[in-house]
């Protein structure tokens, strides 16, 4: 009698352990070796006009703004076939920066001279943002997000005053300067090294 009641339970336990083993294989076996998990920001959200349409800016307007604040500004490099650049909603930009930090932790990459330096931090973020904008169906434009070189004379965002690369973006709050290594944001007018911006890249 005792044996009869134990059998269904034993069979359940064996089945359960079998399922558990099968579930564990992709996580610890071959699949984990060949692939990895990467965090990504959610769907791109543009800054909107009052009528609900996305806001855009031209490269000339961005160049003019940079020239206005920086006497030493030389050039904005941009793709002349792109007439308008879509503005990012501020909230999405902040999420992008937070997820970028998680993503770099996921892939365990750290600052290293030349091979992974401030230019890489900046240009990689710039390219990732563009891909996320495509994912939302904006193929005939590009984000008003780029990167720039600054011959910094003052410390900002915990980084020393040296030749440095940073990200810039235009949101509903205007042109912002971003330190991609720690996600700090400041409006261009309040950026302590604004007059030392040398060149910017919008492609």
């Amino acid at each position, binding site marked *: 009698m005792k044996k009869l009641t134990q059998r269904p339970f034993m069979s359940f336990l064996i089945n359960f352990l079998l399922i558990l083993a099968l579930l564990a294989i992709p996580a610890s076996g071959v699949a984990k070796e*060949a692939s990895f998990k990467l965090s990504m920001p959610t769907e791109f959200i543009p800054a909107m006009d009052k009528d609900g349409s996305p806001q855009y800016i031209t490269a000339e307007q961005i160049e003019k703004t940079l020239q206005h604040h920086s006497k030493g500004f030389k050039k904005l*490099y941009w793709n002349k076939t792109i007439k308008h650049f879509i503005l990012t909603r501020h909230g999405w930009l902040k999420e992008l920066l937070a997820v970028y930090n998680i993503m770099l932790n996921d892939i365990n990459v750290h600052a290293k001279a030349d091979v*992974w330096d401030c*230019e*890489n931090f900046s240009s990689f973020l710039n390219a990732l943002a*563009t*891909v996320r904008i495509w994912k939302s169906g904006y193929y005939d434009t590009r984000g008003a997000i780029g990167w720039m070189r600054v011959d910094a004379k003052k410390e900002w965002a915990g980084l020393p005053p040296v030749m440095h690369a940073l990200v810039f973006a235009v949101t509903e709050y205007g042109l912002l300067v971003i330190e991609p290594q720690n996600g700090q944001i400041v409006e261009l007018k309040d950026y302590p090294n604004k007059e030392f911006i040398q060149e910017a890249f919008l*492609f």
Partner: protein
Amino acid sequence: MKHPFTIKKICINLSVLIVFFGYTESHAADTMFLQKAPPPEIIAVSGKAKLLYGNFIRKQLQKRFPTLKTIVVGDKRYMFITEKWFKGVIDWTEYFITQQVPEIHQLENLPLAYEATFTMLMSNIANIAVSKRYSVNGSVLIGLMVAKSEKPWGAIQADGKPRQYVIGLTENGSMIYHIPTRQISTGKDFPNKDHTSGIIF
């Protein structure tokens, strides 16, 4: 006395938890599962990475391409990679973009900023791979090149329009890759090398 936590109950609860976490993880909108990029292959001489200085590269490019108006060389030192790995990173970059935007190759035209974005991703992906495997203070020399199409090249017509290419430095010299047509050539054999107007590394 019957114990409230029988093995059977514990097993059922564990199953529910496994199914729940498996479900939430696989359906998280902010997570991607990617195949690993091919392992980096850099060129070494006497056990040390073969490096070129940024200033030297700038002078060489000016000499080789007299029509160059824009040269941007951002890093101090650059390394050579194998041609095989250069092609491997091209494939992986395309895979990375397609995983995020699967419909991209069904579009009539590629997005406007496609070539430059592809090149930036490719260069950074290559540098991430190198930085994780080797202890070298040098950047992979992968950049964006602009040249006017004065001479035909495979599927590309000689229409005089400027086109963007990926340029990389390998053991076989420079390699030029045109992303939309997937054509590849050595810098030496690239038909429009005399009409290059800009290179940005």
